[in-house]
Each structure stands twice: as structure tokens, then as C-alpha cells.
């Protein structure tokens, strides 16, 4: 957690090595609940990214006045106001998506990934690294939501990018149909757990392979 990280390295770490969803396993409730389609996952991912970046910025900007005994109320104040703003923006600009995500937009308040970044990083670092950290961590979380959403949608209903209209507007879009039917379990709650488990397993497998390759190179 040193402050002297290079921006690119910080982003790489946030996206992969310290991914809030894959490694820290934070914010699992929204992750498991809304990822039944790609568009839902993308919507919540963008909302979380926005809140995380802004909350990191604000916490970092106010860190000089942060005192240990009032820091938690301050985080909660900042995060709750930002989530309210994002909710209003979604209701104004993506009403269909807001209806589809329902209570999970206001529930971003309780996503522990956000308060964790405020406490671990933003309260101890200057504004620029905090913004980069917020974007990186938010993008890491959002990408995971998108990946699990796309996977569950493809397996569960055999489509890609269905209901994209919730983002770009216009008439309902069915999406590209890859095959008919689908494996319903993937859409149901157990499918969310299985998909997350597959994602974590895949990440660990890739890491192990990389480590082995690096060790092999060292031994030569």
C-alpha cells in the first residue's frame, strides 16, 4: 500500500492482484444479486465505479480534517450522499436500468469495497493517487460484474447483450441469440455462486501458471 506506486502499476494491481471482487471478495451481495445479464452488471458496475472514484476524491480532499473518532461517520456521510446523487442521475438518464437494478443502486452504500478503499487508501494518500485508486478498483469491480453477467446471460438464456436498450435507449433489444433455451440454473441465485467460484478459480489458475513460468525462468 505504498504511496509511491506508479499509476499504471496501481491500476494493474487494482484490476488483477487486488481486485475487490476476485481477491478481497468484497461487495459480494450486489455482485451475486444483479449479474443475471451483462447490462445489469455493467449498470451497477458503472454506478459503483462512479461512487468509488468520487468518494475516494472527497475522502482524500478532506483527509487533513479526518480525526480517528469521527472518520467513520464522515465516510458514511460522503458515500451516502454520493450514492443518492448517482441514484438520481440513473433515474433521470437510465430509467429502465434503474427499474431493473431497483434497490441495488441505493444499496451501493453498503458495498464494503467502497468504505474499505476510503479507510485503507484515500484517507492516507493525496488526491491524484486516490482518484487513480478509485478508478482502478471501481473498474476492477465493474469488469468482474460485466464478465459474470455476460457469462450467466450466455449460459442461462443463450443471448449476448440483451436489453442493451436500457443503456442506449429506444425499443427493447432482444440481443444476439447464440442458442435457444439455456441452462436456467445460471440465471438463478446458485448460478451466481458457481460463476463467481469459476472466476476466482480461473484467476488462481492463471496466477499459478504465471508463477510457475517465472520460477522456471529464474531456475535457468
Amino acid at each position, binding site marked *: 500500500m505504498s504511496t509511491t506506486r506508479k499509476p499504471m502499476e496501481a491500476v494493474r494491481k487494482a484490476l488483477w492482484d487486488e481486485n475487490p471482487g476476485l481477491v478481497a471478495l468484497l461487495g459480494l451481495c450486489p455482485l451475486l444479486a444483479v449479474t443475471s445479464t451483462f447490462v445489469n452488471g455493467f449498470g451497477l458496475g458503472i454506478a459503483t465505479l462512479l461512487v468509488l472514484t468520487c468518494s475516494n476524491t472527497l475522502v482524500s480532499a*478532506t483527509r487533513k480534517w479526518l480525526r480517528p473518532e469521527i472518520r467513520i*461517520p*464522515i465516510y458514511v*456521510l460522503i458515500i451516502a450522499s454520493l450514492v443518492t446523487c448517482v441514484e438520481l*442521475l440513473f*433515474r*433521470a438518464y437510465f430509467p429502465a436500468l434503474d*427499474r431493473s437494478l*431497483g434497490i*441495488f443502486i441505493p444499496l451501493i452504500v453498503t458495498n464494503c469495497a467502497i468504505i474499505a478503499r476510503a479507510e485503507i487508501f484515500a484517507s492516507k494518500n493525496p488526491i491524484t493517487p486516490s482518484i487513480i485508486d478509485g478508478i482502478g478498483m471501481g473498474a476492477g469491480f465493474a469488469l468482474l460484474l460485466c464478465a459474470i453477467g455476460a457469462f450467466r446471460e450466455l449460459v442461462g438464456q443463450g443471448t449476448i447483450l440483451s436489453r442493451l436498450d436500457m443503456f442506449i435507449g429506444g425499443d427493447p433489444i432482444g440481443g444476439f441469440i447464440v442458442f435457444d433455451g439455456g441452462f436456467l440454473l445460471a440465471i438463478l441465485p446458485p448460478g451466481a455462486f458457481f460463476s463467481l467460484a469459476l472466476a476466482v478459480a480461473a484467476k488462481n489458475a492463471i496466477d499459478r501458471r504465471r508463477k510457475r513460468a517465472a520460477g522456471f525462468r529464474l531456475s535457468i
Partner: protein
Amino acid sequence: MAPQITNLSSEKSEKPVWSAGIILAVIAAVCTTLVALTYGLTEVRIAENDRAWLEQNLQPALAGVVYDNNLLESVLEIPLPHELPGNEPVLAYRALLENTPVAALFVVSALNGFSGPIKLLIGIDDNVAITAVRVLKHRETPGLGDFIDSSKSDWIDQFEQKSLSAPDRTLWALQRDGGKLDQVTGASITSRAVVKAVKETLLYFEANRETVFAMSDSDTTDAAE
């Protein structure tokens, strides 16, 4: 860990409590301003979206009723106090066929749900039978109370064609309350709230059918007096 704790408490004693209060107050003021600004920025668009969503649902809530007037021009605001569910003025749309009333739509709020008001669009035909009910807005628990949404389950379709005589008005309650209507186990508060709101709307329409169709927009203010 121990030295850090002593460190914290000594720091606490140096700075007075009121300065922490001031810091909190200032940050609260900044955050409130931020929310207020965003609200001001989005208010109009949100109202437009809500109206568009309502208008999109008028047709499904009339489920097959034949009419020939422009629903949007037939809207009427029923001011408080009224016997309809909810604590705000209720919008009513009236469907006519060759100038004869055939159905009415009410936008009401069921207030006794599990979490926040449930906004319902209730269609009633001329025989005081439900054409269809649609949930416009709710904050019920996902996976538990959101079955009232027609996109999540077909529970709400059970109201179609029901009236105050079929089932009898004394049986307009959930089965577990001795009535005739289906509930969802584990979410009886939500089910009960919707059933009660639909029943109250039917009772209101039965008692006030003539006035609902007779009132024109300009009469709304007279009715309020």
C-alpha cells in the same frame, strides 16, 4: 497495536470535542448541497420519465378493453381527501367508447407494504371488475417481495376479472386471512398491502363511478371545495 491505541487517546484529549462537531457539520453541509444540486439538476427529467413509464403502462392495465378516446386527455386529478389508498392526490384516466364510459384507471399508492409505498396502476371496467393491475414503483426486497412486479412473476395477474361480487367483498383478503386471494409465503405483508389497495380502489369506484366519469378537468377544483 497497544501503543497505537494510547496514541489515539492522547490525540483525542488534545483536541476539544466541539471541533470534531464542526468538522462533521461542515462536511454534512457540503454533502447536502451536493445532493440538493443533483436533485435540482435531475428533478424535471425524473418526473418526465415517471410520466412516460406510467403512460407506457396504461394500455397493459386496460387489458383488452375497447375504447376510442385519448386516454392522456381524459386524465383527472382526484384531490385529497379521498377514500382511495395513499396520502396524495390520485390520477384517474377514463376510457370511453363513443362517449360512453367503459373503464377507469387509478394511480394509487399502497402505504402499508414492507418498505416504502407501492405505486399501483389499477384498471377497472364498467362492471366494477378489475381489467389488470400493474406495479409502477416499489422498494420491496429483491427475491422476496418483488413478485408483485409483472416482470418477476404473474402473481399480479390474479386480480384480472375479479370484482366485489366475485369473490364476495368479505373474501377480498389473503387466504391466510380467511379470504380468497393468493399470497406469497414469506411476503404476506407485501401481498396484503396490494390486495388492500386494490379492494379499496374497487370500493371507491363502486361508490363514486358517476362522479369519476362526470368530472371534467375543470371540475377538479370544484370537487375539492
